[in-house]
């Protein structure tokens, strides 16, 4: 009887621990092959045949098709440079320059990868349509209410992800530091 209870206990621990770990790993993302520059993280190997088993399981679960490495690379940011989670009720600025690429796009998603509804039907910018300063740098204002300049509406959602995709770019598996890939700064600019 004690043996049976022991087995049941061990199996319960195994199921809870094993499945919990899987759930955690697939929803939080793993560090395998990740490039982190400031607030931005990319997994360039996910767009190749060298994809790791965790990323394979994650894309099978979400239904996402990762961007192929011959096409481009995607950088994700869900917090600002100080590590605070991005809050759609506050204003966040994304400013500076981007790594070398033929062009780029920046898009806001909710945590499940859906576009964020807003009255302006504005979900992102491309490098071609963004307004720049005289020195070529830019500033994007991510905020719930309309702002002058490059305004990306959050629709007042509490958590969101910014995805910066570089197309036809040398940035990839070999990239290590911000010197190879200068990413724009992500800074909280107060809540209204």
């Amino acid at each position, binding site marked *: 009887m004690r043996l049976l209870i022991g087995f049941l206990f061990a199996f319960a621990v195994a199921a809870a621990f094993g499945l919990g770990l899987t759930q955690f790993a697939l929803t939080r993302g793993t560090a395998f092959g990740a490039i982190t520059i400031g607030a931005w993280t990319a997994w360039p190997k996910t767009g190749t045949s060298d994809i790791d088993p965790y990323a394979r399981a994650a894309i099978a679960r979400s239904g996402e098709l990762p961007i192929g490495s011959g096409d481009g690379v995607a950088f994700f940011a869900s917090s600002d440079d100080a590590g605070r989670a991005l809050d759609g009720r506050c204003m966040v600025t994304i400013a500076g320059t981007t790594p070398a690429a033929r062009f780029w796009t920046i898009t806001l998603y909710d945590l499940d*990868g859906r576009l964020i509804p807003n009255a302006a039907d504005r979900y992102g910018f491309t490098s071609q349509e963004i307004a720049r300063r005289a020195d070529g740098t830019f500033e994007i204002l991510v905020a719930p209410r309309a702002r002058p300049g490059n305004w990306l509406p959050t629709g007042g959602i509490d958590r969101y992800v910014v995805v910066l995709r570089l197309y036809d770019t040398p940035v990839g598996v070999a990239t290590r530091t911000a010197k190879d890939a200068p990413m724009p700064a992500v800074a909280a600019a107060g809540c209204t």
Partner: protein
Amino acid sequence: MIRWLLWLLGGLLLGGIVHLATVLLLPRTATQDAYTRLSATSPANNIMPLPAPTPDDAVLPFMDPAFATAVCRYDLAAGPLKLRVPVSQAYTSVSFYARSGIAFYAINDRAAGRRIIELDLMTPEQRAQIPDDEEITAADRLIVESPTPTGLILVRTFGPEPGLMPMARRALAAAQCGTQS
């Protein structure tokens, strides 16, 4: 007390195995992966434009709204596949995904280096059957080997601004995908 700690330790070890097994098996059992989602709407070996993603409705998560996308769900059982994509003015890319969503090959208009991206997709077995001399005459044809007999091809054209999206969609309409006859 010691006995319970040992059971706990055994449980944790077993849990580690459960974790690894679920991670490795999950891609085989997924019912919501990209291939399954697209099977409902896109016939095999035919190219179909995907509707632009909106907040209420997107075929796949994390689609880039600045692109017009078409998908060709392929099944190489009937023979190799021919893909012909005239490039758009802005940017065109072709990405190949195996059945489980692995991006095994991607090429853009600049890497292809011409006005029309022409590719032959086949299994390694089908490639082995091509006579050698034919391979030489077809040297300017790009041959891509698919690791799985089924999968997805994504053809994407860039719309630099919302006003140029109709142009991107028109460029996409000229793409062809089908089995060789």
